[in-house]
């Protein structure tokens, strides 16, 4: 009855994987029951220091552990990057609506990720794999700045071998060791192997990347209502109370963070 909505529950850091120079994945084991739907986010507390929002990158069907992939980008995240295994962190949530998976049933699902934006998409990909017969096809397009910035290096080849999966990666800047595609992620969105009348596009990455990918998808024939975007806003409470994440007449934390382009296209400054 008197639940305190600001109180985090304890989670222990069980494992830390270095994904790239600036990105690490932390495996957390919550000490109380905790579950989430793919696309929902959590607030992670570093006790005595601060809190920041992250979308788990693990399969939501795994109940006892959560992976959180974190880029070293701000004051809290840089300190998180330095914590040792077995540290205690706090988690609150899950918050927001997550991906409406039912709406993707029977369709070609295009997933476009940029940089650390692949983190929430990994959780999505894993939950789609869990019920792959419900979807026609999974088309994955992933771009990173350089080969060294690619995350989930072990998982990606494994995903691409799965049935129904069509996966292409690209880097903005190539180097001698990189054998794949070179160019911005928009350059691998030509001639997509999807049936446009029956496809959805899901995009997650830095705002500028989402902007250009969205324009590209509209260009190739996706409808605004079939493009799903993860909006990044400054979230604090996660509960629709603190005001920080307001986007027009929405709160990103509770009405999102996933919106269709249709829902946000007429709002001002959505890519800022």
């Amino acid at each position, binding site marked *: *009855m*008197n*639940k*305190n*909505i*600001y*109180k*985090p*529950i*304890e989670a222990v850091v069980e494992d830390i994987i270095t994904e790239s120079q600036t990105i690490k994945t932390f495996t957390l084991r919550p*000490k109380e029951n905790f579950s989430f739907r793919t696309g929902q986010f959590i607030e992670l*507390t*570093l*006790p*005595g*220091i*601060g*809190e*920041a929002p992250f979308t788990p990158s693990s399969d939501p069907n795994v109940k006892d552990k959560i992976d959180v992939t974190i880029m070293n*980008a*701000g004051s*809290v*995240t840089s300190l998180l990057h330095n914590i040792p295994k077995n540290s*205690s962190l*706090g988690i609150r949530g899950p*918050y927001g609506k997550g991906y409406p998976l039912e709406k993707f049933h029977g369709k070609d699902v295009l997933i476009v990720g940029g940089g650390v934006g692949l983190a929430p998409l990994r959780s999505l990909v894993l939950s789609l794999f869990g019920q792959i017969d419900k979807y026609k096809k999974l088309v994955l397009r992933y771009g990173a700045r350089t080969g060294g910035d690619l995350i989930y290096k072990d998982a990606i080849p494994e995903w691409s071998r799965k049935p129904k999966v069509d996966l292409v990666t690209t880097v903005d800047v190539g180097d001698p060791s990189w054998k794949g595609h070179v160019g911005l992620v928009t350059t691998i969105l030509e001639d997509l192997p999807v049936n446009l009348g029956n496809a959805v596009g899901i995009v997650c990455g*830095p*705002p500028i990347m989402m902007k250009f990918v969205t324009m590209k998808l509209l260009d190739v024939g996706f409808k605004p209502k079939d493009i799903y975007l993860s909006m*990044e*806003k*400054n979230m*604090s*409470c996660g*509960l*629709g*109370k*603190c*005001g*920080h994440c*307001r986007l*027009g*007449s929405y709160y990103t934390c*509770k009405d999102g963070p996933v919106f269709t382009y249709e829902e946000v296209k007429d709002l*001002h*400054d959505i890519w*800022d």
Partner: protein
Amino acid sequence: MYNIYFAKTEQLESFAKELKKLARVFAPLAKDAQSPKQTDYLYQRLCEDTALAFNPYRTVEPLKSFFTYKYEKVADYFNSAKNLTDITEKTVIFGVKSCDIAGHKIQDFVFLEGVEVDSLYRARRENTIIISGDCTDFKEVCHCLAWEIMPFPSAGFDLNLSPLNDGFIVEVGSKKGQELVNQHKDYFTPVKDTQIAGRNAKRQSILDRLKRHLLFQNLVSKDQVQNLIREGFSLDTWKEFMLNCVECGGCNFICDTCHCFLLADSSQKQQQNGKLRLWDSCQYKNYARVAGGANPQKTRAARLRFRFTKKFDFFVDNLGAPACCGCGRCIEVCPGKIDIREVLKDLANKLKKQQ
């Protein structure tokens, strides 16, 4: 329908004294008792011998300051079993005005509704008795009527006081209010028709005076305002008015309807280890800044507009009414003399010129 009573001035005084035994009692105190119709009123906790004063208009502090605080701990970390919601104190607040009650609906909407209830807020709300009063005067900045809010409340209080020459009409507005009267029967008598007529005459008089005061100001109306804000998004109004903004956040902190806060963590070295909640201001530069550094509200003009779109677009969409109660507090507090009435009027004028 609830009951309505009369209490003589001395009876109300004694009632307030009784209340002090049951709860913390706050009432407005005149800054300058010599000029009760010009001075400001500030809330003060009544002690043994402070007398109850009747404020003719709203206090300086917003009503919200009894329910969320500028800076407070709202949760312990997981290592503590203590529940902070269990330690709220019984509180009685005199001197609340109609605008405060209207503004407080916004706070209730934010903290009591939506995805989850803030149980700390709810506990304070449940433990608080609101004793409001009719306005018998107004400040220059008062413009409740522009938002169709009357200068006397008709709901949202536990008890409401309407002053007459020798005492007060006491209108009950809730079960809590009725219980309080029942427990203190001796201080209340049945109201007479002549007293009700007296209240009506006084109410009509303040209404007429306030209407006259607002008439020549030509204020933007409740049903126009959302359109105005939407259509005025790209006007120069924002750039022009922001020139004087020093980003103090005063307009937000003093506002009855502003509710933004920041959750922070107190340092492990301090005893207060846990989650802190601090009032926040959308006029601060980093209000909307994300971890990567992007900031959709980079300029003061964008932030001024953000404050207005929140009040007059977001809340109209989400609650069906603008989030301003016309209390004028933000006008009085602003060191840059930015006047919410003038900003809205400027938008309206500029749009008219464009047509």
